[in-house]
């Protein structure tokens, strides 16, 4: 499968990446490489094989329902680029 410019820009948008014109060709080649490599898997017959979603074999790594706040609001907001001591602030997202 060949990745075209439109697909590249769609992927970039979904990842909120700003792809500059000079970077396009290198990225296209790189993505093509990955896809070609993955396509080798299509040669295998996977008829009747359940999809594998996790590889460790571990299951039921759950916890009991116990609540505990360990982070103060002051600490929680400390690294935010913009905050007012109560809320985090971002540029307005709706009109």
């Amino acid at each position, binding site marked *: 499968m060949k990745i075209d410019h439109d697909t590249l820009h769609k992927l970039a948008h979904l990842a909120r990446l700003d792809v500059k014109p000079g970077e396009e060709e290198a990225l296209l080649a790189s993505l093509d490489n990955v896809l070609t490599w993955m396509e080798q898997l299509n040669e295998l017959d996977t008829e009747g094989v359940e999809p594998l979603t996790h590889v460790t074999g571990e299951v039921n790594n759950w916890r009991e329902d116990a*609540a505990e*706040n360990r982070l103060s609001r002051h600490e*929680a907001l400390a690294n935010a680029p913009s905050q007012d001591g109560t*809320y985090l602030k971002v540029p307005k*997202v709706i009109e």
Partner: protein
Amino acid sequence: MTTSTLSAQTIGKELLDRYETVIGLEVHCQLLTESKLFAADVNRFGTEPNTNVSPLTLALPGTLPKLNKKALEYAVRMGLACGSTISRHTIFDRKNYFYPDLPKGYQISQDKAPICVGGGIAVATKGNEGTSTERLIRFHHIHLEEDAGKSVHDGSDTETLLDYNRAGTPLIEMVSEPDLRSAEETGTYVTEIRRLVRYLDICDGNMEEGSLRCDVNVSVRPVGTLAYGTKVEVKNMNSIRNIMRAVEYEWRRQVALLENGGTITQETRMFDAETGQTYGMRVKETMNDYRYFPDPDLCPVVLSDAWLDEIKSRMPALPHELREKFTTSYGIPAYDAVVLTETKEVAIYFEEVCAHTQHYKSASNWLMGTIKSYLNETGHDIGTLPVTPPVLAQLIELVEDGTLSISTATQKAFPALLAEPGRSPRELAEANNWLQNRNTSELETLVEEVLSAMPDKVAAFQKGKKGLMGLFVGEVMKKSGGTADPQLVNQLLQKKL
């Protein structure tokens, strides 16, 4: 044919009736767990902004989610109550999108292997001539997912404020098939879901606070056709009434649009409770591409028979089971059973009363009459009613054995018991001289006095004016100062006349 343009407001019933509405719902319920779905932060509504947060909730590097077992149990409870198939092997997926209320850039949800598949909720629909039929509104599935944070848009013109207390709180989402056909049915469906989650103790069902939320998909099609029309998703309804209004409005709007020769656009619309209308969002909707994939941070969940059995053994009685029990074991009418199971608290109270007296229908009458009016007037709920079930049962017994008249019991004894909950009904009745006079000889004297005072009425009665009986009973009651047992008076009068 007129050329004027139709609108949702002006379109007539005749045109509307040519179309059928097809409705499917996505209902989100916030689960009543102590902690969040994948982190230990406190799960509570209404606390100070950004105080129930953790490094995981804020998506700081180096954190790993860990599933709350209770949330899983609650989802299974809902599935069991709705006859769903419980998935014995379930996984979590990432739903990827960017929005400031979602710090990770993805929501942990379930896509390919949701916890419950199928099942549904029976909804009673009124047919013609007052008949009622039950129809199963099928679930596509129920899945578990985490909620997003809360955005505050009206605090400033240039900035959006974010509170992450809600981020990561556990939700179940019930996705229905497009089985609903009217606003009324949709209202009944959501009411049933809300009742059920409250019975199951898994969600408080508070729509104002957003612990039960609902997105509605509405389309219309000409009656008799099978192909679905283009659907519109409507959001932002915070009550069952508003959900019904939104469906009704969409039906009218879409039919008017089609009758004007227009086409329906697939879009998300917001409901405005002030105007009762829906409006398209100006935000440009790009095609959603969530790129779901299994979350590698969360291993699969495998439900054992033993654990499922444990959950089943902890299931409370459900509304339909109680309705069945009330009509068959207690012999009360089906209507009473529906009213008594409207809330779990009233159903439990009724059951407790029935453990102390066998006059089940009387108990039902008390709950549907005197007690219901009292609760409505005062705004109290039955859980804090000062008159406990055993005390009410004693009061019912006093009425049933003729010691107290029903009017004295409801109008005097009940208010007195509310004021002095510690006293026994019998003691109160004796102290206040409320006991009914069942002394036959005393009452016979009164009956004779009354009848001899109005010979013309007696003559009229004997000629067939049987309606005068009420007058005679009333006169005797008056003479007794309201203490006579009306049934006994009736018997004595019958004998004398």
